[in-house]
């Protein structure tokens, strides 16, 4: 299933291509060493061109077609002075400047195929011994007022220039750039005839000054990045818009639930009150706070030294078996003796010294005495000491 955001990834529009007349270019197949990289192929192409051209490279408009793994590259070049300054100025906005015949280089052809291209200036034949790189390109000028018979004669003459063509394709109207699926390819079309060129390969077809081209490509890459960031932002904005709708829907749903919470609240509070009531009734009926019984355990059997006085004793049903005692001792050493005595009492589970402050010979202390559950029994009478 196609992504709902696929339209944001729509391929590029047809590139602006400036096709140059085929007749002004000399062409040649240049051998490339096996396993060469694209950069090595470019170097070999330029060396071969320098060796075979009567002009230095700086005075040529040249380009080449080579596919990775191919044993040769197809090179085309033209003396720069064959183009006027005005003509060259028109290429300023073009994304690709190349001879018209180069548009068919991306065609899917079988071995020994020849494509005949018609133009106002004449006929061009592009021949492949073995695809993908063409072996030869021949141009036969034909006058505009020439008859069909003259054109047929010129066509036959062109075909005789090749060793043999098992298949001949006549493309009667020039190929024009078409929209591609992505930035990674260029598409040329004439009726049903389609030629697809990878962008990296097509870049070498451009005949303009290579330094200028490098700058143009850098600017184009930058622009593409800017465009993609813009598109990413647009997609995010679209998602945010959907998110806003989701939030509106979510808030409506949340309001329904809040109404439910409010509607249930009185019933729930009543149940909670019942629970609390059950707990308190149960506490009253079964859990009895026995503070005096606990205090008696602290005094009993003369456990408490005479130097120790209790100031505050606190107990509550929240901690049913504990007693907190704040006291004062006129002899600080006696506190530890007393704590040791209490720890030995069988009904006492734990004695914690929460606070202990010495002032001279006296000491203030706070202890937390925890009794063993069920160790104390409610007394009918308690003997005071």
């Amino acid at each position, binding site marked *: 299933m196609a992504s709902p955001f696929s*339209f944001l990834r*729509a*391929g*590029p*529009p047809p590139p602006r291509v400036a096709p140059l007349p085929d007749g002004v270019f000399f062409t040649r197949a240049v051998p490339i060493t096996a396993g060469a990289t694209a950069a090595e192929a470019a170097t070999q192409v330029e060396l071969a061109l320098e060796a075979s051209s009567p002009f230095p490279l700086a005075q040529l408009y040249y380009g080449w077609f080579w596919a990775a793994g191919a044993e040769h590259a197809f090179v085309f070049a033209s003396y720069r002075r064959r183009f006027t300054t005005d003509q060259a100025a028109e290429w300023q906005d073009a994304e690709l400047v190349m001879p018209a015949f180069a548009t068919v280089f991306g065609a899917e052809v079988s071995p020994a195929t020849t494509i005949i291209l018609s133009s106002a200036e004449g006929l061009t034949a592009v021949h492949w011994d073995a695809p993908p790189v063409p072996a030869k390109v021949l141009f036969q000028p034909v006058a505009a007022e020439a008859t069909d018979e003259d054109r047929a004669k010129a066509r036959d003459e062109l075909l005789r220039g090749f060793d043999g063509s098992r298949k001949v394709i006549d493309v009667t109207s020039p190929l024009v750039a078409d929209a591609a699926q992505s930035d990674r390819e260029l598409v040329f079309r004439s009726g049903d005839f389609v030629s697809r060129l990878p962008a990296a390969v097509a870049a070498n077809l451009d005949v303009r000054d290579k330094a200028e081209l490098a700058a143009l490509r850098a600017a184009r890459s930058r*622009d593409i990045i*800017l*465009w993609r*960031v*813009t*598109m990413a*932002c647009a997609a995010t*904005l679209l998602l*945010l818009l959907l*998110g806003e709708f989701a*939030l509106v829907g*979510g808030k409506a749903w*949340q309001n329904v*639930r*809040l109404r*439910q*919470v409010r509607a*249930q*609240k009185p019933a*729930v509070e*009543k*149940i*909670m*009150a*019942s*629970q*609390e*009531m*059950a707990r*308190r*009734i*149960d*506490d*009253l*009926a*079964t859990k*009895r*706070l026995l*503070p*005096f019984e606990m*205090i008696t355990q602290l005094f009993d059997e003369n456990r408490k030294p005479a130097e120790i*006085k*209790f100031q*505050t*004793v*606190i*107990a*509550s*049903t929240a901690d049913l078996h504990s007693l907190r005692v704040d006291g004062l001792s006129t002899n600080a050493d006696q506190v530890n003796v007393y704590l040791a005595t209490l720890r030995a009492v069988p009904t006492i589970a734990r004695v914690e010294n929460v606070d202990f402050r010495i002032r001279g010979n006296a000491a203030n202390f706070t202890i937390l005495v925890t009794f063993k559950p069920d160790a104390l029994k*409610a*007394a*009918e*009478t*308690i003997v*005071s000491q």
Partner: protein
Amino acid sequence: MIRTLRVYFLTRQLREKVLLLGFILFATVWWLWAYSGRANRFWRDQRSTTLTLKEQRQWLDNRLSIETAAQKAASRLDPSQTLDRLRLASAVTQAANESGLRNTTSNPLPSQTNGQFTVHSVDFQAINANYEALLQFYLKLHKRAPYIGVEKFQLNSNANDESKLTLRLVVSAVEIPR
């Protein structure tokens, strides 16, 4: 449409491209920031509501067992011996008087009810009493258990006279309608 926009964008001057991108980037970041805050709040609210509803559902599902537990707890008590607010205050005061406590105060605390049963509480204080009297008072209250219970206990000795004590109790009783 996107192709047309792309052509429009790519054919602008560089500064126009940067400006366009700047605007859209600013709008995106601003909206994203604002949205994330609101979305966070919504998420927290809905999560809290979900938890509240879940908790309420648990309470409602347990209604029968809780009410049964309350009934069961109450069934341990004889309704005729349970005390209302006045009878509780009176019982505490009577126990204090019978124990010889004179300097006392007794303040009723707010009652708690579930509609069927009511728990009454009294904040009782006896000042400058001797230990023996307080002990007698405590034992008298204990005799009324479980109809009267001590929930909080605090005993303070007088700084000037150690034999004088101040007792503060929170005493509670359940009232079950007969």
